[in-house]
């Protein structure tokens, strides 16, 4: 007898755990209905139930997951518990811009790390990221990251070049104004 009520309790406990997404009143109602069903079925036996009787009744009910997913199916906003869909879930088809988006991010990272050669890479990353948006991509996060990094790299690269040009210009000016080759001193010629 204890074994049989344990089986029923375990079934209802499992079901209750899977229904936490339901409003409490609906959850209590569902659990009450199922418990009543089991009690009625046991009473219909007209004799003390054996564990086999209980197992048969619970088997006819279906697994707790079956019942739970049917309940959660039409409760908007609740994540259905493993809602065994009739059609197998299909992985979203790749979109034409996916490759571009990934390549844009790769180039942008390269452009951030490597000076000078990174400049064309940064431009390419920006162009690819824009092309990916036009073509459509599932990897929009990657695309945006590529675009932003590409822009950062582009600005960085331009700043490096500007700084270098500025320094050189300054040195040339200083050099020509003050005569004998301070640049040579810097380079280490005695």
């Amino acid at each position, binding site marked *: 007898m204890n074994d049989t009520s344990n089986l029923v309790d375990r079934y209802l406990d499992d079901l209750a755990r899977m229904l936490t997404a339901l409003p409490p009143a609906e959850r209590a*109602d569902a659990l009450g209905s199922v418990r009543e069903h089991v009690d009625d079925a046991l009473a219909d036996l007209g004799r003390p139930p054996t564990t086999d009787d209980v197992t048969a009744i619970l088997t006819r009910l279906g697994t707790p997951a079956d019942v739970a997913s049917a*309940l959660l199916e039409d409760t908007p906003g609740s994540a259905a518990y493993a809602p065994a869909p009739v059609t197998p879930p299909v992985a979203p088809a790749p979109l034409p811009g996916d490759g571009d988006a990934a390549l844009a991010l790769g180039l942008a990272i390269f452009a951030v790390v490597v000076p000078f050669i990174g400049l064309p890479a940064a431009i390419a990353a920006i162009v690819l990221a824009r092309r990916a948006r036009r073509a459509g991509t599932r990897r929009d996060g990657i695309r945006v990251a590529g675009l932003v990094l590409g822009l950062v790299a582009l600005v960085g690269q331009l700043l490096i070049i500007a700084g270098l040009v500025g320094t050189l210009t300054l040195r040339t000016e200083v050099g020509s104004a003050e005569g004998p080759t301070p640049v040579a001193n810097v380079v280490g010629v005695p």
Partner: protein
Amino acid sequence: MVPGDDAILAHLRRGSVEHCVLALLRDGEAYGLDIAARLGHDGVLLTSEGTLYPLLSRLRKQDLVTTSWRESPAGPPRRYYALTPAGHDALDRFTTVWARFRDAVDSTLTGSPS
């Protein structure tokens, strides 16, 4: 992939089984186990008896059935389900539409002109 019998039945049950529940209540109220037994006896309309209760709670939310508690001859009180006037209307309408649907499918499947 050709769907198996179970998958076909699962598709066909959607939208039709709840009306079969309404039909079982047409002649009077019934309690859960009783409905489950009558609906599920051949395993076509109901595979897992437990899924009847989500269905009944949906019908009640739609105001197509009501519940009331009754003493049962043996054991604790039971909840009985009965059709509301809206439930009767819904059943009548479904019965008409279903006949058209069934005839159209039958005549298409057998290839005879309707």
